[in-house]
């Protein structure tokens, strides 16, 4: 691979502005106890950091493994260089979403549509049978839901992908 061609040296600035990432010295602490590193292909957090540091944009965009992260954040606790690897993974996902609309998680459409990832408050009978009070959900409060949607519409991911959020 020719780094000259393949590498965008400012990639990190697009992804993870804090610069914490640079402290990484590839010690492998993050991967040795990572649940998703058991996957196939494994999630190798240090490799993701490396792709960002080396500016290998194409390769990073192709990476599916950031999405395998279980968000346990143990790497964040253990990282001796305080790279905050979990935050880095979120940042990489954001960057991928921004650069590849197919990466935009479907969950945000759900949230946009009803406020939740699940059908919250719909199971009224069940709730009653358990002795639970009715819930005041956003889904049922059209006025608030609209305000919520309007707010989201002002953010980049929603406004740039507005076609996803149609009725």
């Amino acid at each position, binding site marked *: 691979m020719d780094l000259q061609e393949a590498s965008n040296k400012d990639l990190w600035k697009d992804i993870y502005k804090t610069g914490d990432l640079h402290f990484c010295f590839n010690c492998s602490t993050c991967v040795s106890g990572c649940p998703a590193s058991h996957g196939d292909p494994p999630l190798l957090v240090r490799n993701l950091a490396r792709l960002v540091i080396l500016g290998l944009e194409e390769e990073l965009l192709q990476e599916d493994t950031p999405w395998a992260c279980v968000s346990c*954040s143990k790497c964040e606790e253990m990282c001796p260089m305080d790279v905050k690897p979990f935050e880095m993974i979120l940042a990489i996902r954001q960057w991928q979403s921004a650069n590849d609309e197919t990466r935009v998680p479907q969950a*945000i459409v759900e949230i946009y549509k009803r406020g939740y990832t699940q059908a919250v408050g719909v199971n009224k009978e069940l709730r009653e049978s358990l002795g639970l009070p009715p819930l005041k959900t956003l889904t049922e409060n059209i006025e608030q839901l609209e305000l919520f949607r309007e*707010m989201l519409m002002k953010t980049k991911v929603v406004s740039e992908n507005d076609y996803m959020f149609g009725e």
Partner: protein
Amino acid sequence: MQLCLFLGCNTPAIRPDVERAIRATMPVLGIDLVDADNYVCCPAFGSFPSADEEAWLATSGWNLSIAEEKGCDFVVQCGSCYSSLRMGREHLMHNAAMMNRVNELLDPTGRKVTGKSGVRHVSEVLYREVGPEKIASHLKKSLEGLHGIVQYPCHTLFPSEVVGFEDSARAPKGLRVLTEALGASVDGYSRELQCCGGAGGFMKSTPEQAIEFAQSKFDAILEETQADFIAVSCITCLMFMENVQNTINKKIGEERYKIPVFDYNQLLALCLGFDPKEVSSICNVPRDSVIDRLVPVHPA
């Protein structure tokens, strides 16, 4: 003490008996709960936090503003919700520009976030605020004679400076102490701190390995402990640790893994004498082996 109950998505939608258990138990122990009307998704890490920082934090801000309006902290059971809200709040508190931007976005909705309300995990409230002694003094039934293991929600441990409340995130004690307060013996085992593996995209992207990973944990439980039950305090742990047992059983073609899994508040509710039908009825691994063995506590 008053806390604002943040339910998240999974609990009210899929496991409302856990919600019932929380609503039933906390007031008994002196924690009054108020509802978070019109709350939205925390947001889950796989949603806005994976797509757009601004949308993420605006959503966090929306939620946080509700607790602030009620003038109290959030109490959360779901590990992801807890961690997402804590992290969102942390980002806002450390980034004044982002705080301003979020308030700009919130303004037309009539909301405002300052960060004055905190976010607390229900196990932390029980461990630190209520305490095991108080819990023990209220018991009508006990888990005496039963062995359990505890599953600490990763999201309440790591990173410790953002979400932590244990003395050591690497050697947590809270859930063990709380479960012991109910009379159970809690067994330790080599993979006690291994993540259940249920959150995020691990299971979705490589199910075979995720199941293997979970199985290694269950094998350790079977081999090293006498666990009659598993106590968790996170809706994802609860659902995943139940479901994955069935999945593994199906895969291996034998009913090897059938340890009942409870949310801690469910066990607490049972021991405080609440009706199992209300507080502990929804499950994929039968719980009768535990519920039938509850021992009545006679006031001394």
